[in-house]
């Protein structure tokens, strides 16, 4: 499997996916 960080847009998409995952982590931490 290709490392997404090798491509610029793979890196940006990784960042957005990570944001979405952390959004739900924080929401659950906040008891939401």
């Amino acid at each position: 499997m290709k490392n997404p960080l090798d491509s610029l847009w793979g890196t940006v998409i990784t960042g957005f996916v990570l944001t979405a995952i952390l959004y739900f982590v924080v929401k659950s931490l906040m008891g939401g």
Partner: protein
Amino acid sequence: MDMLPGIYRWIHIMAGVMWIGLLYYFNFVQVAALKAAQADSTAAGITKHVAPRALFYFRWAALVTWLAGAALLGSNFVAAFAFHAGFQKIGIGAWLGTIMLLNVWGVIWPNQKKILGLVQATDEQKNKARRVAFLASRTNTALSIPMLFFMVAQTHIPM
């Protein structure tokens, strides 16, 4: 004294713009430019004259950003890093920023010193350093996206 948090925030944002601006310069501009420059043998212009200067401001701006952010958190520093109630969003931002700072000083800069010839390294070590520094820089670019989201979210994005 009432002005201090505002001044810390101002410094945090100015240094942060320089840090992340240079990070985006490296990733969005310089990587592709170096590839093209290597093809027509003009890469030295970048590696000798641009990259060392950009790296200087990049690594020191990273440190100033973190220190000003820590000063801004003040007595809430532990609450943020321990995700206490009301500090979960800024806590995630603070952790991501801290990981990025450690990446700059602990991984990117030591490897860049080998690549730029500031410390002795064999060709094999330089090639390995190039790959490690590249991936660390790309990791920071990816981390900057949620980091900025949660820094802003603390006061401006309801969740």
